[in-house]
């Protein structure tokens, strides 16, 4: 795609009240090959270069910068417009400056289109939108005085320019993003490093070991409990055999046992009966009974559910010719009935509420549970008493009695030890939050907690492993990108050096200098033997070669192209600059013309514009000439003599 600048217009920008620079051939839209705009210092060259950059990029400017463009004569608004041709398409970018508010507004228009008015917002064709970064624009809207920065400075402008034009700079920009993504992942997921992962693994291992130990302890305790049960059984059998040797005691023992059995049966039967009664809420507690009475009463007061259902009214509105009161139903009545029917419940809802209401109307009176529970308590007490008496049954033979008591003590001791171990198992295995808090149980003393802890650390390990893997992969990606850019740039550098050197041979011929290497900036072979002018010629040649590889053919807009060149080099560099681009717009001052202008090589004789723009004595007024002779003869005192007075000598 070719991008060309056809025209620039100014209105109320600093000292420029109104100015139009047309770069096209007369009677055609084709831009001239070379457009020279001679403006004495202070007329607006630098301002123009800055505005071109801002307008192409659509830069946001702060209030102070916007107000910096306000003319001293005062104006509320300013305007800067460039007409572009991009291939066959023509478009204009408008920059509107509001000096009162300090704001900038971009608009665009299509002069070719019928009725094409102003459209809001900035616009660039898609092909340009993708490549026009600030850095790229600086390479073709170029400050000639900065050409020096490309050569032997150690700064990276030359190498950066190579990256920008080949778009390798985009990859460079993405590399810090990789680090940011990794950091975010690490923040979200915890462990950041191999060291962090190792720590998590070690903690997990510790918890897994503890869980295994706790399970082993539980199994061992459960085995012990079984052992105690068996021992208790054996001891009881032994005690019974001792009792059996005393006939009277045996009878008493059996008598107690019979009572115990009866009481146990009573307890079982009474409990079952009580359970049956307690299953009915109204019998379970007087307060539930009261709740039901109260709820039923309110349902009755509120007429819940209403005896007429929604379906009744819907049917009435849809199917009946007259109302149940005998009046005729018209459409208005029917519509109202249907609307109001929504306030009534469906048949199903009425049914379920009626079931509830019916049950509440038939609830039982609360039971006297206290009496029955007291009876239960008494039975339990009697049972305990018989069990104790049975345990404490005295034998007539002292030795046997002593033996029996000893066995009883052993049984009690076994039971106590067993209970103690059962409690320990309870604490080891309980997943009850209340119990855990009460006994201060944690992963070192409770199996469910230890299981949770192991699960937690397994998740952490997985996340940390993922993070470390992710980080390693990101490092690899970064290294790949770095190597890719290095290799690509190295290859591009070699080609760039070769092509630039060939071009230098063409322009400088016998006095040619050559590029030795590009290491951030351009290094010349035999630097001491090359003049400043030669160095600048190298820089221009470098730039021209750069753009040969660019996807879009750009206009070259340059400020002060020859100001620091000696006359001899100007004559050598001028043809180079002419031949670099299909459109060159050069803003010059009078002192750099000699040796430069006459050596420019436009494609044809009339393919060059000679604009001279200078201030008159009237503030804000500029005069413009397009005549070549006027251009060549024009001098500015200030530039010629470095004096402060800005008077203009007009040529013929």
């Amino acid at each position, binding site marked *: 795609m070719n991008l060309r600048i056809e025209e620039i217009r100014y209105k109320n920008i600093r000292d420029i009240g109104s100015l139009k620079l047309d770069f096209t051939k007369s009677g055609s839209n084709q831009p001239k090959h070379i457009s020279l705009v001679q403006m004495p210092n202070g007329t607006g060259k630098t301002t123009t270069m800055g505005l071109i950059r801002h307008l192409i990029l659509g830069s946001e400017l702060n209030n102070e910068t916007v107000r910096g463009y306000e003319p001293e004569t005062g104006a509320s608004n300013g305007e800067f417009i460039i007409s572009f041709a991009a291939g066959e398409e023509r478009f204009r970018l408008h920059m509107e400056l509001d000096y009162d508010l300090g704001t900038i507004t971009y608009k665009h228009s299509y002069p070719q289109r019928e009725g094409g008015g102003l459209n809001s917002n900035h616009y660039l064709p898609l092909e340009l939108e993708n490549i026009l970064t600030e850095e790229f624009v600086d390479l073709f809207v170029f400050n000639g005085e900065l050409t020096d920065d490309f050569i032997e400075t150690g700064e990276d402008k030359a190498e950066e320019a190579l990256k920008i034009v080949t778009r390798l700079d985009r990859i460079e920009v993405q590399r810090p993003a990789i680090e940011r993504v990794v950091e975010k992942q690490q923040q979200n997921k915890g462990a950041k490093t191999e060291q962090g992962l190792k720590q998590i693994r070690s903690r997990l291992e510790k918890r897994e070991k503890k869980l295994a130990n706790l399970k082993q302890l539980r199994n061992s305790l459960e085995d012990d409990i079984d052992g105690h049960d068996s021992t208790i059984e054996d001891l009881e059998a032994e005690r019974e055999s001792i009792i059996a040797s005393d006939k009277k005691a045996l009878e008493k023992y059996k008598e107690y046992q019979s009572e115990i059995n009866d009481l146990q049966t009573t307890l079982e039967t009474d409990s079952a009966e009580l359970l049956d009664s307690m299953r009915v809420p109204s019998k379970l507690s007087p307060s539930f009974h009261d709740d039901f009475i109260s709820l039923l009463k309110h349902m009755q007061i509120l007429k819940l559910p209403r005896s007429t259902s929604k379906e009744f009214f819907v049917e009435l509105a849809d199917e009946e010719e007259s109302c149940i009161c005998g009046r005729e139903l018209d459409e208005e009545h029917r519509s109202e009935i249907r609307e109001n029917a929504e306030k009534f419940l469906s048949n199903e809802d009425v049914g379920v*509420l009626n079931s*509830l209401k019916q049950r509440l109307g038939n609830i039982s009176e609360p039971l006297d549970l206290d009496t029955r529970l007291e009876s239960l308590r008494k039975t339990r007490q009697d049972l305990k008493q018989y069990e104790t008496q049975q345990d404490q049954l005295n034998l007539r033979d002292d030795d046997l009695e002593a033996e029996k008591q000893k066995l009883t003590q052993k049984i009690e001791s076994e039971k106590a030890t067993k209970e103690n171990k059962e409690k320990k198992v309870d604490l080891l295995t309980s997943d009850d939050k209340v119990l855990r808090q009460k006994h201060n149980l944690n992963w070192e003393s409770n199996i469910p907690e230890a299981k949770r802890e192991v699960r937690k650390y397994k998740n952490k390990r997985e996340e940390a492993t993922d993070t470390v893997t992710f980080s390693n992969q990101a490092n690899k990606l970064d290294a790949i990108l770095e190597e890719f850019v290095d290799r690509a740039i190295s290859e591009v550098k070699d080609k760039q050096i070769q092509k630039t050197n060939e071009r230098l041979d063409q322009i400088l011929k016998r006095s040619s200098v050559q590029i030795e290497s590009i290491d951030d900036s351009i290094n010349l072979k035999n630097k001491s033997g090359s003049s400043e002018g030669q160095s600048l010629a190298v820089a221009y040649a470098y730039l021209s070669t750069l753009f040969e590889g660019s996807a879009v053919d750009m206009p070259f807009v340059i400020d002060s192209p020859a100001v620091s060149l000696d006359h001899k080099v100007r004559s050598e560099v001028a043809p180079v600059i002419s031949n670099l681009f299909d459109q060159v717009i050069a803003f010059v001052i009078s002192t750099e013309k000699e040796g430069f202008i006459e050596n420019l090589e436009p494609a044809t004789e009339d393919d060059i514009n000679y604009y001279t723009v200078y201030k008159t004595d009237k503030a804000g007024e500029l005069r413009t000439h397009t005549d070549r002779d006027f251009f060549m003869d024009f001098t500015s005192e200030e530039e010629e003599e470095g004096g402060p007075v800005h008077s203009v000598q007009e040529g013929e």
Partner: protein
Amino acid sequence: MSFRLSDNARKYFDEIENSSSTGQFNSMWDKYYFAAMIGIKARDRVSTDDEPSVEPFVDSVIEDFRDQKFEIYAALISAEVERQYIPKDEEDEIRDLMLSILDSNDPTQLSDHGKQLLNCYAERGYKILQSSGPKPTEFDQFLRRYHQILEKQ
């Protein structure tokens, strides 16, 4: 949506049952009912977000409770009326609450929301029982203790 009793609550009742030599609960519904009625009486339930996520123990109301199921639902409605501070003369709100808890199309005639609420009362009820002193070891002792705790709520 069905009836659910948390593992901890089941364990609580199972241990009483296992240690008792003089009686036992007849079903999981017995355990669920005892737990739920304590929560309802206390007008306290866990939040619906904390409803036990265990597998349901049953989808229906068993025979033992079929006749009195509407009493259980009425108790649930009364508790929710109080928890939600619904004035007792607000016909629309009470009717809407009842219809959100009951469901004529469900075999139990309790809606999913109603079951969820009952599960939440049962979970709270179990926690009240659990934190009210040592666990009884005999069934008759449990019934006596239960009555005392219920009447304290």
